[in-house]
């Protein structure tokens, strides 16, 4: 879709050079990092907490497991995984953006989530971990910002242990036309204004809305996962398809 092997790639609705996308995305997150949690609550009316909780429930996490939370941002998933894997397990919070990583690290430390959490600045396309090293990998609201999604999916498969599972929580395509229209109106008229008022940054939230529209829909992402080598791939729509949780296994 937007991962063609030519020299340009989508950055929201704009076409930019492939080499530029990473730094443009980095600028967006550098800009929103401080207000990221507040904006998430405001934009989703708090429902993002339920989407994330459902992801945890579908992860099959147990004591002693090793979990990689890619694009972990401010650490919402990491905090819950940390409690569940216990001191024998480990959670690695990875993010390409150091500002997000710093906000996440400060937040988790303030909450007392320490001991079994490691922070790594990493690019999802070239994960700096050994082969077969994680029981669970999650990437929540991060994949659409990755330049080469196919490469990132292959990189995640490499570091996943046999029997392990990847969970991708991402904005997707609403299943009902009415909801789609309402969602479009909200995304392009209200969201950037909220971004302007709360985070003093309308452009980043305009990019957010555009990047969601350019992201592969449910079936496309499913087939991308299958092509990358994941098995038993399925997905579940949440909130009418506004968000979808894709799950795939490495056997």
């Amino acid at each position, binding site marked *: 879709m937007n991962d063609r092997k030519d020299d340009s790639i989508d950055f929201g609705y704009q076409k930019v050079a492939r080499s530029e996308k990473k730094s443009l995305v980095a600028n967006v997150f550098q800009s929103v990092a401080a207000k990221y949690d507040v904006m998430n609550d405001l934009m989703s009316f708090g429902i993002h907490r*339920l989407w994330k*909780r459902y992801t945890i429930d*579908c992860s099959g996490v147990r004591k002693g497991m090793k979990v990689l939370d890619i694009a972990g941002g401010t650490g919402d998933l990491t905090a819950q995984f940390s409690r*569940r894997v216990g001191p024998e397990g480990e959670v690695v919070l990875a993010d390409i953006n150091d500002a997000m990583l710093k906000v996440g690290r400060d937040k988790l430390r303030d909450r007392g989530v320490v001991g079994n959490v490691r922070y790594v600045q990493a690019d999802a396309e070239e994960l700096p971990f050994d082969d077969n090293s994680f029981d669970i990998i999650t990437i929540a609201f991060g994949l659409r910002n990755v330049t080469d999604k196919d490469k990132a999916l292959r990189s995640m498969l490499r570091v996943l242990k046999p029997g392990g599972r990847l969970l991708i929580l991402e904005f997707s395509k609403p299943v009902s036309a009415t909801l789609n229209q309402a969602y479009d109106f909200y995304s392009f008229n209200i969201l950037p204004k909220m971004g302007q008022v709360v985070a003093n940054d309308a452009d980043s939230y305009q990019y957010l809305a555009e990047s969601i529209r350019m992201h592969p829909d449910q079936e496309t992402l499913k087939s991308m996962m299958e092509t990358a080598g994941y098995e038993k791939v399925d997905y579940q*729509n949440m909130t009418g398809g506004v968000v979808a949780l894709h799950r795939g296994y490495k056997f």
Partner: protein
Amino acid sequence: MTLLPLLPTVLFEKLANTLLKKDAQSPERLRRLAGKRIRLKLKELPFTTTVSVDDAGIYISTADSDDVDCCISTELGVLPELQDTANLTRLIKADQLDIDGDPMLAQQLVGLFKSLDVDWEGELANTLGDAPAHWLMTLWRKSRSHVEKRLEESKRWFKGVVTDEKQLLPTREEFNEFKDNMQQLRAKVERLQRQFGERKS
């Protein structure tokens, strides 16, 4: 639909873990059940509920499909009857209950909360101060004892009216006698059916 059962589940889990944290004995009780997982399938609900225990508390999930130590399939109305182990065989025979795994696990899990001993006066004192907390708890204890007394009186009065005065319902003794007679009658009918079946063949 996916998210619908999630909100009450998350709230219940939070409440349960908050209560567990308020009892100093909870860590020891949790340690005994740590690692155990139990699943409840209620016919009336379109999702299953899985409870996992670890030494920090419990986790409730409506999306968990991995293996569990005990899986209970039943109906909502049957749940209160599960408190008494004497009912289990009867309910299984009546197809109202199916247990796969360790049947004692559910009772141990319920016991985790039944045995909670929370010092509510101490908890209140932390937020309101000692004197108001003591006054509130004394008021609560007196009100509860008063309500229980009145309830008991009302029950006695109602029982007198419907069984003795108006004779609308049988007394417990009459009901027990009727139950015994019914059992004897059922045994006789079964015997006759058997004899009839034997002669026919």
